[in-house]
């Protein structure tokens, strides 16, 4: 990679051990992908729950934070994805003391590195959305796909170590979705049915993600009626990223880079796939099995204020037989409290949690501690993830999930 004077100084250790560690990591990644140089970034977003980090990852962070010489804090606004716990309610999900201790060590290290603990995977709804053409270094695949596709920003999937490195150096290797050539559509999908509920939007995203199949595919989707809401696109994108590792999609006439589909090369692409309601129903049916429900979870992504409002309205007058968890961000939670949504959900027997995400919170240990196996959710992303953690997840609408919490079955 070509390095400018500042980057050369960083690599030589002239700015300290922390920037040197960061830029060495970035160069290794950039070399792999053939990046010619670095591009400055304006924001970084770090996914770093301790289930993923383990003791080794936390020690790595502490080692950086303990540096005595040179610069050791981030140069640009750098924020965090959900933590692995809600410190106010760990008992609700049966979390042990050692999990909280490890989380606290990670938080302490991040704070010393200058990171702002926003603990959210919906920063584009709650903190600061990136703008068209803005180069950023975001972690959490749902954040990246939304920012790239809906906002027109430019980011690769930046795992925790790379996102933190970008925060520390203020740049990232210029490859992948920072480059115009990778943002052109590579497959054209014709949809003849428009989803109505969030689980259907997620399922459609999952179908398109499976068709795309890998990170470098960029689907152009045509045929949707009307303009989807932010929450609908949140579920659509998060599921597409989860099922297909996709980081960028275009919606013809809707998303900013495909307002004219020819701008993303659509005139050269024949329609390769047609997707209808039956495809979406098939994906939902794939997760249908036992009627028993042990727990209902709304999470992945965290709920927006409007989703919290919907859940609260559906909880009115109910009494739940099985636990229901509604997981939101620390930015939304105070408004949910002020507007009475939290009270309505918890009066029915549910629990509102914030600053965490269910699958990033030791999901396997939660299952063991609470005896939960059959889980209902309206998140297509969550059902895709939880199979590997030993759950039998079911995908249903928000209304059906809340009915299931009341009856203990779906």
């Amino acid at each position, binding site marked *: 990679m070509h390095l400018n004077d500042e980057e050369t100084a960083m690599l030589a250790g002239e700015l300290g051990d922390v920037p040197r560690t960061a830029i060495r990591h970035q160069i290794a990644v950039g070399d792999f992908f053939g990046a010619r140089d670095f591009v400055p970034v304006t924001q970084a977003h770090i996914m770093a729950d301790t289930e993923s980090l383990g003791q080794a990852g936390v020690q790595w962070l502490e080692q950086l934070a303990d540096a005595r010489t040179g610069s050791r804090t981030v140069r640009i606004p750098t924020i965090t994805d959900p933590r692995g716990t809600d410190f106010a309610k760990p008992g609700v999900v049966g979390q042990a003391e*050692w999990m909280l201790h490890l989380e606290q060590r990670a938080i302490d290290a991040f704070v010393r590195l200058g990171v702002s603990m926003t603990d959210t995977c919906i920063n584009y709804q709650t903190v600061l959305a990136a703008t068209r053409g803005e180069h950023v270094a975001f972690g959490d695949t749902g954040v990246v796909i939304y920012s790239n596709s809906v906002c027109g920003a430019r980011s*690769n999937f930046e795992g925790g*170590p790379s996102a933190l490195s970008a925060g520390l150096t203020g740049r990232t290797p210029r490859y992948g979705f920072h480059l115009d050539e990778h943002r052109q559509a590579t497959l054209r999908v014709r949809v003849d049915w428009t989803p109505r509920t969030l689980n259907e939007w997620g399922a459609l995203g999952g179908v398109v993600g499976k068709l795309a199949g890998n*990170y470098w595919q960029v689907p152009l989707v045509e045929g949707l009626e009307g303009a989807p809401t932010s929450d609908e696109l949140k579920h659509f994108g998060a599921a597409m990223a989860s099922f297909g590792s996709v980081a960028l999609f275009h919606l013809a006439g809707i998303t900013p880079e495909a307002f004219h589909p020819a701008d993303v090369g659509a005139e050269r692409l024949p329609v390769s796939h047609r997707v209808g309601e039956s495809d979406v129903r098939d994906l939902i049916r794939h997760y249908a099995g036992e009627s028993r429900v042990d727990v209902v979870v709304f999470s992945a992504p965290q709920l927006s204020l409007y989703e919290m409002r919907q859940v609260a309205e559906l909880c009115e007058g109910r009494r739940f037989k099985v636990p229901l968890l509604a997981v939101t961000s620390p930015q939304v939670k105070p408004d949910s409290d002020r507007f009475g949504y939290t009270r309505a959900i918890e009066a029915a027997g549910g629990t509102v949690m914030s600053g965490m995400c269910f699958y990033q919170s030791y999901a396997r240990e939660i299952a063991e501690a609470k005896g939960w196996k059959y889980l209902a959710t309206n998140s297509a992303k969550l059902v895709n993830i939880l199979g590997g953690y030993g759950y039998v997840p079911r995908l249903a609408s928000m209304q059906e999930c809340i009915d299931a919490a009341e009856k203990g079955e779906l």
Partner: protein
Amino acid sequence: MAELVLQARHAMGRKVTGEALVASDGFSARYDLNRLEGVFSRPSHKLAGLSYVDRILVLDTAKGGVASAWMLHEMRSRNMVPLAIVFNTVNTILVQGAALGDVTMMAGFEGDVTSLVPHGARVEVDPEARTLRVLDASGAPVPAAVPRHGETPGQARPVHGPRRP
């Protein structure tokens, strides 16, 4: 049989030699693995039940979320890590994870690498030359969930800290 040497477009890490676990399937450390026991745990994965420890994984593509970027490093810290991971197509996360976790990685071949390399074959992955060499294709069937490092499945050292009694 003539020696098979495949050329890759992308590579990083050290030269390694070992037994190949091959499947036309994806890979995500979070979605697909029981990292405590060192086995593929997603029931629908084509390598479900097999130990990945000290094996060379030959798979179609990187899947899932960003957690793998930390998880390879964590797996390396307990010596419960593959020798190398080889993909047809890789995403950025697995490369970032390989860089932090010191795991050899290779991707981008002419043809489908999961069809070209026999399951169970002994192979050499040389990142400097960007080559994958099939040394012995006779490949005995790979046993399921082989214990490594003197451990048996279920007795691996904890990832995070003390587990519940």
